[in-house]
């Protein structure tokens, strides 16, 4: 499974494989010999062109960073033909991918642009590789989620609703005790928040969601509200990055009436009047 091994393996494969009418005669997919109905079901289960492409790459043990584009394109088109012949309605994305592969293939044939001393010429496959890796991460993330014990599938929260007509069950609890516990819970909650902050991008994502929540339904909030001193420097950094990222993607905006004056954040869709004075 080491990339260097599979790399050389794929090279060797290309050199030694007999060619039939210019196409490498690879071992035909074994799936070809399964009954047509089953084949159709199997072909339909691909989640799109990236999924199909990733399947071909994994199946032939191809190093994803060294994709033999010509060969993979042939195989990809073979599968498209197969799907068409089984009357599977092909989504437009499959054809788009075929065109993209053809474009990459033709750019691979051109000599690379003269390289600078240090920089490697841009590989025409780079974007494809990035998309494939991103998709693979997505499938693994999905698998990770699926394996977790899930409520309503692997466990079921039990709770008994007291009949609404009956008075509250006689629980020996005094009001002071309840209020005391409530206060402690609240206090606990505010202290524990600090533990959410870690130097990883996910807590930034969490904070972005929190900020969007706080700015819901036309509310504006002063910038200072979002910084929690108890979170320390890391908290401020996370908060700043979250606000900058939200601003960059035009999810929120801010205004400031005077230099060094207080900054107010708002959600862009919430305040259409202010959008005209976007003169920055």
């Amino acid at each position, binding site marked *: 499974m*080491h*990339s*260097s091994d599979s790399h050389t393996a794929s090279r060797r494969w290309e050199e030694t494989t007999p060619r039939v009418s210019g196409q490498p005669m690879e071992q035909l997919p074994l799936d070809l010999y399964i009954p047509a109905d089953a084949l159709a079901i199997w072909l339909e289960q691909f*989640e*799109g*062109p*990236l*999924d199909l492409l990733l399947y071909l790459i994994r199946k032939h043990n191809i*190093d994803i*960073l060294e994709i033999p584009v010509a060969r993979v394109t042939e195989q990809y088109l073979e599968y498209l033909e197969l799907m068409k012949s089984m009357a599977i309605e092909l989504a437009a*994305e499959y054809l788009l*991918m075929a065109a993209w592969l053809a474009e990459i293939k033709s750019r691979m044939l051109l000599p690379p642009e003269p390289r600078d001393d240090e920089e490697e010429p841009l590989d025409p496959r780079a974007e494809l590789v990035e*998309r494939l*890796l991103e*998709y*693979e*991460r*997505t499938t*693994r*993330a*999905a698998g*990770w*989620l*699926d394996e*977790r*014990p*899930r409520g309503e*599938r692997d*466990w*079921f929260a*039990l*709770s*008994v609703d007291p009949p609404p007509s009956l008075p509250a*069950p006689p*629980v*020996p*609890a*005094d009001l002071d*005790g*309840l209020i*005391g*516990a*409530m206060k*402690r*819970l609240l206090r606990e909650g505010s202290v524990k928040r600090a533990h*959410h902050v*870690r130097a*990883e991008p*996910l*807590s930034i*994502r*969490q904070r972005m*969601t929190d900020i*969007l929540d706080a700015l819901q339904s036309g509310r504006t909030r002063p910038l200072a509200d979002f910084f929690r001193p108890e979170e320390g420097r890391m908290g401020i950094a996370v908060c700043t990055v979250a606000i900058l990222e939200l601003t960059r*993607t*035009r*999810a929120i905006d801010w205004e400031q009436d005077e230099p060094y004056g207080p900054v107010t954040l708002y959600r*862009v*869709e*919430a305040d259409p009047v202010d959008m005209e004075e976007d003169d920055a």
Partner: protein
Amino acid sequence: MSDERRTPPEPPEGLVELVEALLLAHPEPLSLDAIGGMVGQETAQALVEAALERLAARYEAHRFIELDRVTREGVPRWRLVAGASLAPYLKAGDPARAPRLTRAALETLALIAWRQPITRGEIESARGVAVNPQIIKQLTERGWIRSLGYRDTPGRPEMLGTTPAFLDDFGLDSLSELPDFERLAGQDDIDV
């Protein structure tokens, strides 16, 4: 669980049953403090803990129900749950119960969880296919995703994110418990 050197205090008569009933009567998992606040301040926390231990031992013998300990907002909490062994029986009674998630739905949910706030366009670009509106509807109905507003870019795309119910159903205390997305790609692909 607890220190073996000193024997846990004996919970007073009826406390184990009371704690059990409280856990059942509350839809949310309860912390020690929350239980303590309900049974009365005069009951020492150690006694509540002892009662929980008794309860756990009692349910150990139960094939379908267990005392579950989860962490919410960094605080341990308890609840009674029925385990996976009950699922086939529930399903037999109601085949439509908790329909299976398709791969497309799981991948969409994963992108929303890891990449929120994310737009449909970004999901489409990551998966290479159009987003099926039924999937967004299904995930919204399960209470796992929600709208986080709209981006002020052409088309004003909607931003999607996860809900607290998503964290709860997947047993997560917070989003930071999700593994690092960048490390999810095959290790053999990036060791060059």
